[in-house]
């Protein structure tokens, strides 16, 4: 609990990384020997390795640069190409558990839309999404864009229970599901909604999620019926499942932290003013990479021990 902070501060991050990598490396060698003896290791050791390889890059940050893949680029370009004052809806369809993975996307989208002076409508299909929505508003809107005004540049509809049912209603009528915004202001007296009756009147819908209800529901209930372009930021887990919808039913897709990192780097490329802001996506790629390598190693080791033991059995 009292791990001496100054000590860590003194040790340069390179030393820290090399130490921890050394640890992991040695451990791997030890495991290799074991597997050559056809012995499996206890899963707790596997857990330990993951823990080290993830926490090391957090304590001693390392970042890699990212180039956007077409799926990400397409969505970025869409937001970029829309004229100012376009109506963009951003839906926070995730919960705290998923937040570390997808909230960076939400922030990046919000940032981008604000920089392009789009009119943004925030909502959430998840009860728990509401407070995460508040977080983004606090972190991005209020601090980075103090000049933006609620009701004129953006509006927060918040959460309504009913999962895909909510979409079922707003696809033809916002006011029926959201008589008021989150601050109990009737939609009729909110400037952004003068021209918006249903989802048909939106220029772009971005759903950020990773569960149900989520992107799939947006595509099924809103995208297909209204042909409104839909972009998505999703937890890596659901991304492959959404590929069938891309590009016909889904405009573009940010898959997991990598997607977020790619979007962030692209954003910085176009808007140098965001050089300074925190880019969790890029920041998280370090641990990602290490953990991936460790897991890859585990797969190899697992197979080595498997084959060795099988050879012994056949002998």
């Amino acid at each position: 609990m009292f791990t001496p902070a100054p000590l860590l501060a003194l040790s340069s991050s390179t030393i820290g990384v090399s130490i921890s990598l050394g640890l992991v490396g040695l451990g791997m060698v030890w495991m290799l020997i074991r597997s050559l003896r056809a012995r499996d290791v206890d899963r707790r050791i596997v857990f330990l390795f993951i823990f080290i390889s993830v926490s090391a890059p957090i304590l001693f940050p390392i970042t890699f640069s990212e180039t956007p893949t077409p799926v990400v680029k397409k969505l970025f370009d869409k937001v970029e190409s829309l004229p100012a004052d376009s109506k963009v809806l951003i839906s926070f369809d995730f919960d705290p558990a998923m937040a570390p993975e997808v909230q960076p996307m939400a922030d990046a989208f919000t940032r981008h839309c604000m920089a392009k002076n789009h009119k943004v409508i925030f909502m959430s299909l998840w009860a728990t999404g509401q407070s995460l929505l508040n977080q983004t508003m606090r972190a991005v809107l209020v601090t980075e864009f103090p000049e933006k005004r609620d009701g004129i540049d953006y509006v927060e509809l918040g959460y309504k229970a009913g999962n895909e049912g909510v979409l079922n209603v707003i696809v033809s009528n916002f006011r029926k599901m959201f008589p008021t915004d989150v601050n109990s202001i009737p939609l009729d007296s909110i400037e952004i909604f003068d021209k918006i009756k249903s989802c048909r009147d939106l220029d772009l819908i971005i759903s950020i999620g990773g569960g149900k209800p989520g992107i799939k529901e947006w595509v099924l209930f809103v995208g297909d019926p209204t042909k409104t372009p839909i972009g998505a930021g999703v937890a890596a887990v659901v991304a492959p499942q959404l590929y069938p919808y891309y590009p016909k039913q889904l405009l573009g897709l940010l898959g997991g932290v990598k997607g977020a990192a790619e979007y962030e780097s692209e954003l910085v490329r176009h808007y140098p003013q965001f050089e300074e802001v925190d880019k969790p996506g890029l920041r998280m790629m370090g641990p990602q990479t290490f953990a991936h390598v460790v897991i890859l190693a585990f797969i190899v080791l697992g197979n080595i021990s498997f084959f060795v033991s099988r050879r012994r059995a056949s002998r």
Partner: protein
Amino acid sequence: MKLTFLIACCVLFLGFPVAGFAQDTPEEAQPADSITTPIPAPPGNVTAWDTENDHGHSVSLSWEPSPDDGTGLGNVIGYIVFRSDSPDGPFVDRGVQPAGASGHTDVGSKEEASQDYMADYVDYYYKVRAITADSLVFAESVMVGPVQSYGQWFNTGRIPVLVFVLCFMAITIFFIQKAKSGANLFVRRLAGIEAVDEAIGRATEMGKPILYVLGLGTAADIATIASYTILGRVAKKIAEYQTGLIVPCYDPITMTVAQETVKTAYMDAGRPDAYNEDMVYFVTQSQFAYVAAVNGTMLRERPATNIYMGKFYAESLILAETGALAGSIQIAGTDEIAQIPFFVVACDYTLIGEELYAASAYLGREPLLLGSLKAQDYAKAAVIILAILGVIAMNVGLDGFKDLFYISN
């Protein structure tokens, strides 16, 4: 002489600022010349008609983008659609479209109270205005109208859907009838199901309970409904072998149904005495809290077999790995595509997607269910044929074929 001097002064006065402007910020020519934006050409042949397949209160428009949109002067940044209920105005703004757009749907409110109310069977007149960066510089199309909005009684845009629904209903009912009339319908064996029986046997030998997880689906989810049947079968066997059964539930309604199912199963097995209320219990309706509880149960009760059937989300792997840790045999089945991989990797047997539904039919061994299963198979055959035809059509350039499947709005 005086005159020339005067002119010279004017030139100096007027000229300098402009020249100076041009000199120190040559690249900022935009604001300078936007003061005199050339007027763009208006959008061409505007047409307006009642929006098809809707409940009225809406008119659709289309137009040819102004020649200066993108091309030409290229200074058109969008279009505003104006509406009036009389040819001579006043015209009200009914919506904006970005540059490049060539159509707009003007949707009004159904409620007369609303200021945005749009009456049916009333003449409306429309104008489309091409706008530039300078709000004073724009070009309006010729007025179109009168046009009336009215509701349709049938949504022709969705005919393909209707056709499929009807066809599918037809074959389903046909096969169900066939099954009822005693025709023996073959259904191939499903490894997963065989495994269930073995697993129950194993549990009996070990004298350990069986953990049955219905997943996170609501009582109405198809996967859950399919899972009930399997649960019924499992419970019956368990009742016969007198093994323990644990069914922690996520959804209160699902729980009530599960209780009924298990109770009935025990009665069918002729041991209503062995049934007790606590076998099926409610945990909580929150994903990870539920998982936390089930994980605990796994490590404390050490069930011989874990059966996961129904809707599962991120928790799939948490459950499956914890189960493996507890050394249980695991059989899973879900229609949640994203989660199948984890079950396939971590469990001993997995019913992949549709197999879950098939399993319930297979176990129910009911002619009705088998019949509908047959119907599905024929539908699949139809898909394969359609796909082949479609691909051929695509390759010989008969794109019309694809349009048969096009569902407008």
